[in-house]
């Protein structure tokens, strides 16, 4: 399957999964909202143009916003993590190995430890910014940081499950 087609299918599946399954779960606790959809942006290919990456992230966030009815709420954090992503990848992986030979970030192409750090930092940034603009103020600081931490923990748990369920083959780039 071509890379483009695969990413288009993922786009649709992530949006539908987030809205029709994760957002329909009655809240377990006031700190915890399950978010998984942003994993789509973490999985986009290495060699994507940075401008295109931002535009795709914006459209992705906005299409979830059409379902939730809050235009721009999810789009803004998506654009933010898409902007930080290349810098983080440059720091985390040796220049000549993974980026040259693999298509997209994953535990096979980067190794468990750098990949976990990459996912952890970006999901923390995503939730921090999302909760911040949702409240538009810090309000009660303990509540704020508790919500960010709780949501990040649940997201990381779900990403771990996804990684174990779907063994994405670390396909080598074909020249």
């Amino acid at each position: 399957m071509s890379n483009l087609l695969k990413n288009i299918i993922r786009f649709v599946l992530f949006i539908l999964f987030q809205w029709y399954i994760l957002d329909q779960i009655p809240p377990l606790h006031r700190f915890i909202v399950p978010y998984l959809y942003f994993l789509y942006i973490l999985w986009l290919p290495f060699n994507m143009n940075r401008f295109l990456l931002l535009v795709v992230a914006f459209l992705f966030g906005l299409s979830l916003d059409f379902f939730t009815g809050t235009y721009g709420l999810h789009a803004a954090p998506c654009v933010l993590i898409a902007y930080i992503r290349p810098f983080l990848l440059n720091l985390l992986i040796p220049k000549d190995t993974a980026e040259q030979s693999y298509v997209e970030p994953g535990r096979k192409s980067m190794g468990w430890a750098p990949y976990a750090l990459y996912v952890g930092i970006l999901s923390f940034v995503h939730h921090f910014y999302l909760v911040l603009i949702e409240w538009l103020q810090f309000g009660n600081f303990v509540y704020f940081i508790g919500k960010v931490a709780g949501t990040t923990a649940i997201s990381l748990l779900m990403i771990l499950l996804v990684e174990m369920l779907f063994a994405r083959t670390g396909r080598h780039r074909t020249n």
Partner: protein
Amino acid sequence: MKNIFLFIRKYLTFLSFLLLQVIAIVLLSNASKTHQAFFASAANEVTGGINKRYSGFRDYFGLKENNRILAEENARLRNMLASNFVAPDNSKQHFVDSLVKDTLGRYRKYTWLPAKVVSNSYTLQSNFIMVERGSDQGVKKGMAVASPHGIVGVVVETAPNYSKIMSLLHRNSKVSAMLKKDNSAGSIEWDGTDPNYLTLRNVTKGAKVIKGDTVLTSTYSANFPSQLMIGTVAEISSESSSNFYTLKIRPSTNFFSIQYVYIIENSRFVEQTQLENNTPKNP
């Protein structure tokens, strides 16, 4: 001029990042004000169509509970039928008057329209409910919405066949309420933290509130009929610096499993709100 182009080219990614962020924030801050934004209505038709299919599939899981609620309500309504009452003597006969406007000068003020919920959210700070009944079926902005158990919210946006309801679980929602016991008024809001509890503010400390007291909609509201159920008092907190109680209310509506709601039309809504918003010209 050349330098400007070079600058733009050098920082293209950063500039486009800033631009997209600004677009997102502007959309977000305008969302509550410009509900008639040109794409909102069109997008509602599209997402409403998808949501309808999904909700049709999900309805099967809620059939049992819905049946129970409907049966309960049917029983209650049947008990109110005139045919249940028999006059003790048959020298007088009882007729049910079917005129819209009856001869004693009473008029119909509220009309209840049923609607099916096609999407619902409760995990965000600003939660909306979409129902399949729109301006073509007589829904207008500002109408009140209730479920069989209690009130749900207010209509904020309408498309031809769908409309969007601002749920009570929205940080901007505000409904006038009162305690059933002594009619002391207050206003129902939501602080955005826990979807299991609402907040009732501005209840005077003269009221003798205890846990478990019933809270109803007040007689001052323009869109809600008075004395509809809202919930019960779950926690009382009083600050010594203020003259008002802040009460935690457990809503009687279960926001996590709403499937059918009633949209309540007040035929004198426009008249009342126009007069309320009129500022006297020469005070």
